[in-house]
């Protein structure tokens, strides 16, 4: 199927420009439900036209944060600014935000058409304009022939599209997406993710998405805020979050990672010798600027795909290398994940891309192997 792509995307990073003014500002927001603190003194800036993701496990406060922006909850402390205006006391029905609900929340007694028109009717737009906008939205989500159907007569994917069309119909300043793709199957989800980014780009709107699916967050968003227990752990681009997580929590939450605890032996800066660690006998050197000082307990983190796996010993065996045997293999099609049990009992995960078309791979359970990695492959985490 030929697919029309939106305009060519350009690099977008207003957050690096100190002159740019944030579009949405969460200022020292705290939200308490009884004794439970859902959001704890959180400050966050989101820029115009940004696709921003709130990522975290369930109960981390990401949905509460979004609901406060929509107006369904009032912050216990702090303020939310939209284009510099405080939203305190503004009811949801007067806020220029629209939300796509996790359950879609389509009105079951109205047709697709009526659902999409609902928000426009509240604005008392002229009939012709409403009709034109509904048609435009139906076209946008490719549901023209389903206009007269009721939500119960649609598939899950179609309902999701109606929900999206309904929330976009009023051209909100900010579109809020609450786990929008959770109910779709994997294939449809991936397709929709790309459609969402295209749509956001074409319409030039600010999107805020809440999700617990790290893959979804990485695919769609310009920046991600990783949350845990009501606080933000890191705000950065998907690549930064993945390649340079600032803490064990973020490193562990996003993707697969080996975390090896150790003590700092010496720290000489990235250019002059790097950080040397002693991880209970395993010597690790990382070329990295790091605030840790000698003797500190830190963590070395390395992604499985950055661990090399060989039958022959590498040229350098004293540092960043270890010998062991293949303990388990996870065959995932595009790559295989090897669990290597080092001679000191430590398990290291190494991923290998399956670049040859083979049914029987040369490495199998119990084989003696070497793992090693380059000095810039891993990361020392102090938090």
């Amino acid at each position, binding site marked *: 199927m030929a697919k029309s792509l939106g305009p060519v995307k350009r690099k977008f990073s207003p957050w690096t420009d100190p002159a740019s003014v944030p579009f949405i500002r969460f200022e020292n927001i705290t939200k308490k439900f009884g004794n439970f603190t859902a959001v704890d003194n959180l400050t966050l800036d989101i820029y115009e036209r940004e696709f921003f993701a709130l990522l975290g496990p369930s109960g981390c406060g990401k949905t509460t944060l979004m609901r406060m922006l929509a107006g*369904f909850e009032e912050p216990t402390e702090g303020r939310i600014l939209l284009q510099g205006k405080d939203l305190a006391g503004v009811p949801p029905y007067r806020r220029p935000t629209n939300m796509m609900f996790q359950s879609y*929340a389509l009105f*079951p007694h109205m047709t697709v058409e009526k659902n999409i028109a609902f*928000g426009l009717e509240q604005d008392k737009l002229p009939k012709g304009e409403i009709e034109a906008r509904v048609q435009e939205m139906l076209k946008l989500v490719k549901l023209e022939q389903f206009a007269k159907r009721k939500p119960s007569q649609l598939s899950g994917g179609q309902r999701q599209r109606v929900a999206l069309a309904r929330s976009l119909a009023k051209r909100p300043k900010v579109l809020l997406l609450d786990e929008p793709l959770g109910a779709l199957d994997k294939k449809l989800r991936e397709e929709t993710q790309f459609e969402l980014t295209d749509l956001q780009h074409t319409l030039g709107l600010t999107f805020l998405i809440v999700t617990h699916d790290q893959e979804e967050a990485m695919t769609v968003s310009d920046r991600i805020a990783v949350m845990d227990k009501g606080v933000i752990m890191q705000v950065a681009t998907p690549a930064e979050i993945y390649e340079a997580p600032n803490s064990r929590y973020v490193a562990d939450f996003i993707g697969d990672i080996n975390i090896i605890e150790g003590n700092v032996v010496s720290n000489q800066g990235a250019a002059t010798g790097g950080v040397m660690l002693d991880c209970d006998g395993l010597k690790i050197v990382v070329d990295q600027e790091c605030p840790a000082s000698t003797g500190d307990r830190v963590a070395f983190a390395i992604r499985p795909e950055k661990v090399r796996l060989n039958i022959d010993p590498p040229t350098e065996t004293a540092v960043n290398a270890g010998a062991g045997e293949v303990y388990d293999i996870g065959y995932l099609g595009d790559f295989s994940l090897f669990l290597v049990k080092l001679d000191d009992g430590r398990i290291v995960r190494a991923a290998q891309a399956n670049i040859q078309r083979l049914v029987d791979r040369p490495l199998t359970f119990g084989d003696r192997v070497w793992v090693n990695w380059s000095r810039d492959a891993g990361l020392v985490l102090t938090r």
Partner: protein
Amino acid sequence: MAIDTLSPQPPSKPEPVIADPSRRNPARWLVVATPYLWLLLFFAAPFIIIFKISLSDTAIAMPPYTPVFEGFGKFGEFFSQLDFENYEFLASDSLYIKSYLNSLRIAAISTFLLLLVGYPMALAMARAKTSLRPILVMMVILPFWTSFLIRVYAWIGILKPEGLLTLLFQTVGLLGEGEQVQIFRTDYAVFIGIVYSYLPFMVLPLYAALEKMDHTLLEAASDLGCPPWKAFWRITFPLSLPGVIAGSLICFIPITGEFVIPDLLGGADTLMIGKTLWTEFFSSRDWPLASSIAVILLGVLVIPIVYFQNQQQKAG
């Protein structure tokens, strides 16, 4: 069938013949037939008897009508004695038409009042905390634990001129010494009694419809710019319509034929078809006429209900 060369298939076996279990199992039929048998025995058969009596003539005998079915030998003679005389009489005397119309009027007003009182109650129950809801439902059902008759008698004690209501109003100063509440034995008392007695029948179907409504629909409406009072009429009320219709039918039908409440609380001029029927049956001992009143009453109620059901099925 085209041969699929890509996936080798085992040679096709003859499909085992599995008989439809519903045809083999007589217990299945019994389950379906029992309610129909029940209706045939206790609704259709008595109705046919009543209908037959309505075509007979009154007589001073036991039973007080003729002809009496005396076997198939005299079937022709029996059949020739049946006529629509009673129905003609009903149509000619305005008392009966007035009774029917007044019953329908009282039932319609009462049903409207019940909706007015019951809807806010049901809504409050549906919006209450989940842990509180079973208790609230229990409280709605609680009056059923005492006899209906006793509860209506209790209203006499409240509404009569020297009753509790008068006493209350005199105590708070709304009425002076010697003044009395004059609603006992009027239509107002009938309305109060009916609304009180039928309230659970209205509240429960409404509650059932409102309770299963998804609250995020109201959040979605609000998010799209719809203030709460407007969202009630655009979202909550239309979605509760099945409950509104069910509650209204469950109340309207028995109220139309209500006898006890107008008899105990209503005045002499409170004309309701239930009362008229009772009078014809027990005071005048005119069984054929009473039967024809009952048959017409059934028609008056069944036709709109069937229409309603049809409409609902079309909408659903």
